[in-house]
């Protein structure tokens, strides 16, 4: 899949790219889609009240009023959804003395909770702005003393419990009840096991360990509550994995784990890692996350599938400089707060996005057939939208249109469901055409049986005849299957390079036939994405490496074979690979993924057979005992690895030398003119 990513990056038009968005396919590559959201309006402060200065949080209440934590101005600004300022909390007159408020939450009745970060407290105000109560640092033995109370973001559930992110406290969200009592931490992030780190720490001295610093789990940057369904959504910063979590009120993450929700990309030599800083959930369960490193907005469905991405870095409307907060209003508009610009951009979903949301909502509810219509419209707008193809496939599957479902799952790049549809299709085919299929299968079975019998008979005949008569190369190939010991004897007595070339080409041909003709639901290497040089070298390099190292080892271990002999024998020993690969390719078109075991078994048998042939080859050609053969093979493999390492080192060295000369040439070229 990396191949696709680079393919798209390499040839994407360098300029005159129209403003479009993209979606991230489950495999990680980008799908171009029409722009998902357009800017409806921009909310700034106004001349009378002053502009925003480094605002850090945004909240939209049940009446669609917009609250902005105007952090550097030490105030909270309340606006209507068009940006008209209705009220300012934290003015000179109201004596609230807010200091760098970084978080805001408003209850349905209009009560305002402010994370007054600079004053280490949470302030609860009435809708009119009167102070109702203050929450200060709760006291409990369970609280880590290293993290003084510094509330940054907060959310309230219906029972009045506050879920507070506390500075860089990594223990989880603090739960504080209405009496300012600490109820415990909820939803801690766990540290993933890291082998490199483990080894480093295991063997480091105490001083070195201290110098490394303490590794702590990533902390929740932001928290959002979905009061209807009782979920807490959090955004986790500075992590590569699981940037978004969805906790039920027991503190268990119910969102798909071990996934990347942000993007990590290296483009034009610039590395950008994800930094998800806020999430919002709309009434249909569509999750919107904002990444302040990429300056993009990512949308996901309830199953963690990426729906679309838009935004990016830029000083134009629809782009961001430092987006820090996102919220939905009841109309479906998306509001994004930009800290550096000091403004809120309100986005309206375009037609395509509405369709995607509609389809994905119905799909998440399992209403596949109702989702068919929106998904069909999505495909008519963007025929590459993978989730839509999957949705259509599911609906067709429900309608028992197996063949059509297969086509859609193929376009939706969904192996599992393709296989299911194929299974049903196969079943149907068998039911309707049982007679013909049974007959054909019987004919093929009988044919195969007699072919093997005939070849075996031919092999016996060849064995009886003296070596070197007839077509020895062909005879040896047959013998390599039916009587490998005799085959290797004969090869040793008359090795031929011609046969080696033919067989090596045969290996490659088998591999490419596998790439091109393996059925979609088994095919891990598709012709569109495969790399020619990689495919060739992964077969050729081990082959020659083993032949060379086996020759080297046998020649110092009282062996009797020459390089040419070993090489020729190795080529013959690869015949089972050719047969096995072809059989596997054929079977992939008949099996479903439920029968993956059979498919894999063919592979395993093939490799065992090749292994056995190699074993016999070494043993027979050098007159070794069994134990010595094992020993020689182990040594050969180790030698091969050593040779490979030396080869890589040499390659790197040569590259450096070439680079050096290029540089010198460049220098001369620049100065010379």
């Amino acid at each position, binding site marked *: 899949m990396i191949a696709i990513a680079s393919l798209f990056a390499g040839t994407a*038009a360098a300029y*005159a*790219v129209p403003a479009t968005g993209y979606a991230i396919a489950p495999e990680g590559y980008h799908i171009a889609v029409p722009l998902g959201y357009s800017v409806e309006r921009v909310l700034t402060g106004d001349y009378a009240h002053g502009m925003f200065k480094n605002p850090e949080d945004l909240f939209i209440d049940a009446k669609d009023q917009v609250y902005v934590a105007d952090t550097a101005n030490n105030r909270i600004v309340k606006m209507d959804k068009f940006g008209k300022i209705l009220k300012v909390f934290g003015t000179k007159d109201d004596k609230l003395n807010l200091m760098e408020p970084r978080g805001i939450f408003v209850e349905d009745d209009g009560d305002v909770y402010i994370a007054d970060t600079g004053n280490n407290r949470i302030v609860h105000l009435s809708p009119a702005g009167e102070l109702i109560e203050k929450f200060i640092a709760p006291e409990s033995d369970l609280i880590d003393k290293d993290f003084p109370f510094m509330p940054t973001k907060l959310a309230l559930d219906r029972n009045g419990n506050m879920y507070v992110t506390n500075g860089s406290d990594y223990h989880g969200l603090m739960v504080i009840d209405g009496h300012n009592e600490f109820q415990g931490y909820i939803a801690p992030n766990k540290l993933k096991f890291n082998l490199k780190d483990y080894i480093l720490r295991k063997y480091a001295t105490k001083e070195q360990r201290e110098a490394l610093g303490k590794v702590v789990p990533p902390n929740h940057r932001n928290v959002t509550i979905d009061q209807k369904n009782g979920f807490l959504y959090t955004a986790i910063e500075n992590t590569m994995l699981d940037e978004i979590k969805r906790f039920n009120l027991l503190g268990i993450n119910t969102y798909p784990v071990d996934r990347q929700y942000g993007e990590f990309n290296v483009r034009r030599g610039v590395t950008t890692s994800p930094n998800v800083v806020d999430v919002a959930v709309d009434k249909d369960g569509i999750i919107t996350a904002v990444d302040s490193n990429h300056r993009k907005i990512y949308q996901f469905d309830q199953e963690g599938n990426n729906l679309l991405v838009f935004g990016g870095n830029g*000083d134009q409307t629809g782009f961001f400089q430092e987006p820090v907060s996102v919220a939905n209003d009841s109309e479906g508009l998306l509001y994004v707060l930009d800290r550096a610009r000091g403004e809120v951009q309100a986005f309206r979903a375009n037609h395509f996005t509405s369709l995607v949301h509609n389809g994905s909502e119905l799909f998440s509810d399992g209403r596949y057939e109702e989702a068919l219509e929106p998904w069909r419209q999505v495909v008519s707008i963007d025929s590459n939208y993978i989730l839509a193809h999957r949705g259509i496939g599911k609906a067709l599957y429900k309608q028992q249109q197996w063949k059509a479902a297969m086509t859609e799952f193929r376009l939706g790049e969904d192996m599992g469901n393709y296989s299911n549809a194929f299974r049903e299709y196969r079943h149907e085919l068998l039911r309707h055409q049982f007679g013909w299929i049974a007959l054909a299968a019987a004919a093929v079975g009988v044919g195969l049986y007699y072919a093997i019998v005939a070849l075996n008979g031919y092999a016996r005949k060849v064995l009886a005849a003296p070596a070197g008569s007839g077509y020895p190369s062909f005879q040896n190939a047959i013998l390599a299957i039916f009587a490998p010991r005799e085959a290797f004897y004969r090869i040793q007595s008359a090795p031929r390079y011609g046969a080696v070339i033919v067989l090596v080409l045969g290996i490659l041909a088998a591999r490419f036939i596998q790439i091109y003709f393996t059925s979609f639901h088994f095919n891990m290497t598709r012709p569109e994405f495969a790399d020619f040089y990689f495919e060739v070298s992964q077969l050729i390099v081990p082959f020659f490496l083993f032949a060379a190292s086996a020759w080297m080892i046998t020649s110092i271990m009282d062996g009797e074979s020459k390089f040419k002999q070993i090489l020729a024998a190795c080529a013959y020993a690869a015949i089972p690979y050719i047969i096995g690969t072809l059989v596997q390719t054929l079977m992939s078109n008949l099996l479903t993924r439920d029968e993956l075991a059979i498919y894999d078994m063919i592979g395993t048998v093939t490799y065992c057979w090749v292994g056995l042939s190699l074993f016999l080859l070494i043993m027979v050609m050098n007159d070794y005992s069994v134990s010595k053969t094992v020993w020689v093979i182990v040594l050969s493999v180790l030698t091969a690895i050593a040779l490979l390492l030396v080869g890589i080192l040499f390659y790197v060295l040569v590259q450096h030398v070439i*680079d050096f000369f290029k540089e010198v040439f460049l220098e001369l070229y620049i100065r010379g003119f």
Partner: protein
Amino acid sequence: MLRRSWRIGLWVLVLGLCAFGVYKMEHYQIERNALGDGKVEDPAPVSKEIVDKLSDIASYRQVADNGRLTLFFEPVTSSIAVRDRSTGALWMSAANISDEALGGSELLKNSVRAPLNMTYADFSRPVHDPLITNSITLPPKIASESIDRGIRVRYDFEKLGISFAVEYTIGEDRLEVLVPASSIKETTSNLLVSIEVLPNLGSGTDQDKGYMFYPDGSGAISNFKETHPAYKDKYTATVYGSEEVLKRTGQRTENAYLPVFGANKNGSGFVAFVTEGEFETVINYSPSGYTVNLNRVSGEFFYRRFYDAAIRRGEFSQRVERDLMPVDHRMRYVFLPKDQSDYAGMANAYRAYLLDSGKLASRIPQDRRQIPAAVDLFMGIKEDSVLRKQFLTVTTFAQAKSFLEEMKAAGVDAMSVMLRGWMKDGEGDYPDSDQAAGALGGKSKLTDLTQYAKDNRIDLFLNFNNVDAFARNLGFRKNLDVMKSPSKLALEDYYGFWYLLNAERARLKFAGGQGEQLAGYGASGIDFEEMGQIALADFNEYHPLTREGAVEKWLEIMRQAREQNGKVAVHGGNSYVLGTADRLSDIPLGDTGFVYSDEAVPFFQMVVHGHIPYSGDVPMNTHYDARELFLKWVEYGSMPFYELTQASPEKFRYTFYSDELFSSTFEQWSPVLVQQYKELNGKLGHTWGQEIVGHRILSRDVYETEYADGTKVVVNYGSVPYKGSDIAVPPKDYGILK
């Protein structure tokens, strides 16, 4: 023995030379000029009293008068003022604003009153940073002499060793500013980079009423307003687009297609355009809130460019060119009558200039009453596969012909068709081959198609790209054939994959048979990619070309193609193509959308409509909002534009073109096309040959376009109905007043 003494002597000599070399290197001193050492004292800035009086016309003297305009000159700072008797407006080179309202540092305060800003660089330093000053902070020695209808001012920045002259003259309705390249003198290592003349003419405070116009994409305006945040960037656009075409990252920006800008302030306005030297000009707009609270718009004349010189592989240092580009710069400010002071008036004045000077050729007969449908047909592309690159047949020539037949039968009479990816390597394997793809039907089927188009008076263009080039197609002559930067390294993208062809090499190849080959297909014309979108200076050793020179070569190619085929089309609308092209593509129907821009306006369309057919940059079938795009066509007078295929786009899903096209079958889109074509032509067909003479913003999301015959089109993008005095327009709809 003699030999031995020889040997010793030689050794001593060699060692001595080595020691001398080492000594020299250890004590190497970079030549510094006066500025670095502070040997010469900074001349004191112009005194505060004089600066404060610059907004008072009493301190100026009259130097020219033509009945309508009077030119004034202030001798100490060389400030300029123009009084327009017809409107009563007084345009001054010094901004009239209090220090308090302005904000910002002393340099900036001086800068908004200065008649010119200057950028220079010190060549003796290891890194050449742009150094910015103005004629008030660092007052030059000023000498003025009267010339016909104006004044010639000689500026001598003695301390920097840079001097040049500026001529200000007035014409009937205009002020002309000329900076003759021959007047520029440099005596030290300080090198002149750019001169921004009259940066504050027409500048508006937050309390003034009006707006600035600048040529971002189709055109953009920014209103003077009190409520604005502090901006981190200003609009600064090289005319005809940035030269960093291959290193561009992220943000998409539109070109400044026209070298024009304007101001509308308190009911009067001017439009300014560069008439000479526009290839080396930058248009600046500083919104209020960018460093100071003042809206300023200006043109900046460039004489050198900065570039990244390779120190070693992967390491660069900013350098400035050693040689000055001897380009004369001439800019014209046209002061507009009261009723023409808006951006539509600016467009009318600029169009009149272009037509007068022959820079805009009229290609549409006045009596044409049909808006053609712009249809791109995507034919083929190569797909990477593990064993070979396979050519994907998306639309064959025969299928394309049946499309045209079907559309014709459905009543689509006028069409302007482009074939993309028709050549043997398909779309996007640059530079394009001139051979028709066999898989699509070969030359015979292609001529069949073009013959059909000719017989039915359908314009059919063959898309062709001989600007871009991929490394794999260049072979060993790469260094000969490609464009280079001042550092003598080839211009390439980050991956060393994408290059640009040297324009002269491209021309030679085109003249040497390629053009003939293309003409042999019998199409109405060739559609050239890129040539109207980018302009680059090329430092190729064999064929070095200035920006203007490179463009001239491309224009030669276009003229040749036009001669051979009858017509020529081009992508992009940089103003130099307007005198040659018969059809424009990729004309943005909007601006970049910079945060400080308030509205996109169809300035480019106002200039071109009725003269050259143009289509937008996004086809209907991939646009995110079909209704919005249709309304844009109506407002901007653009051809309806589609890009269609026979095969479903799933076919080329694994090629780069899946980023461009993801819904395109003729089957799906032709009913839409026919319906929209008929609707547009039924209501607006008669406007096709006419100029757009007016454009207004009626209210939020409601715009009015006016044609020469008085037809008015009111477009409502909003979600609420619009009710005007004589027309009501439902939401997402348009209405027509005749």
